[in-house]
């Protein structure tokens, strides 16, 4: 089985390590796409979200309370989002453990919708991160590996 992506380390903090997903054949990882999206980085909550993520990896650790699970039964509890304020700006992630976080992409929930399922862009991001989680799980199981075996510097 081919994983179809690699897990790239993007930050080592005092309390946690952060990785992102870089799909085969793509030049950049998902988190890079998030921070270079002009709509995202000009959002009023962008700096606050940045601070929140910083607090998580450097000071507080990946406490469960800061991660919001998506209300869908088919999704594992590890698949969640970090948001700020009323949650318009959000980044999807896999909280693999207390010390390891895999950041995916994200976006902005439009004002006129209530659930992420109503947004094509957000739905795509959730599906992508959920698919990555399932693939990692399966890959580790089939190859009798642990997550550390497939991490890249």
């Amino acid at each position, binding site marked *: 089985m081919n994983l179809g992506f690699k897990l790239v380390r993007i930050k080592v903090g005092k309390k946690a390590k952060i990785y992102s997903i870089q799909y085969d054949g793509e030049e950049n990882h998902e988190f*890079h796409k998030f921070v270079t999206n002009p709509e995202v*980085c000009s959002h009023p909550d962008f700096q606050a979200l940045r*601070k929140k993520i910083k*607090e998580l990896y450097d000071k*507080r650790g990946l406490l469960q*309370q*800061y*991660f919001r699970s998506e209300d869908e039964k088919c999704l594992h509890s590890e698949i969640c989002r970090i*948001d700020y304020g009323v949650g318009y700006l959000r980044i999807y992630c896999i909280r693999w453990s207390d010390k390891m976080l895999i950041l995916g992409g994200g976006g902005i929930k439009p004002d006129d919708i209530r659930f992420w399922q109503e947004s094509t862009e957000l739905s795509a991001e959730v599906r992508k991160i959920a698919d990555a989680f399932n693939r990692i799980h399966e890959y580790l199981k089939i190859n009798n590996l642990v997550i550390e075996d497939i991490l890249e510097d």
Partner: protein
Amino acid sequence: MSREVDDFFDETETKIPEDVSQLVEKQMDIAEAIADAIDKSEFKTRKDFAEAISMKPSMLSRILAGNVNLTLKTITKIEAALETDIIHVEEFKHEDSKMKPDYLPEFYQFIFKIPSNLYDIRKNQNTETEILDIETLTNSNLIQRDIHDAFA
């Protein structure tokens, strides 16, 4: 790693504004204090607690995620239900009942008939001196006699 990703984490080019930084830190501190207090309380689950204070569980979840700019009213409601302080503010220490220096001259002139020229001299000095001098005057025989006359 790309410049944008470097900057996001290490603030190489764009610093997080100090007010935003402090607000997020405080919101997260409060969120953790509330979570800790709920865990130590008699409420078995966070959902139970939310119901006890007539709050939607989703709202409590947002608060615990450090996402809500809580009002003092909500904090007080949470504190009352948990019977603990979430935020602690030092009690304001009131000074002894000294009147504001701005009002003193008129007050003393009215009650004790201090000649205005005496005040004109005093008001050029610093505030502390002004208060002390007027207090001294209050204790003087001259002022004591005026008080006696005023209420006679």
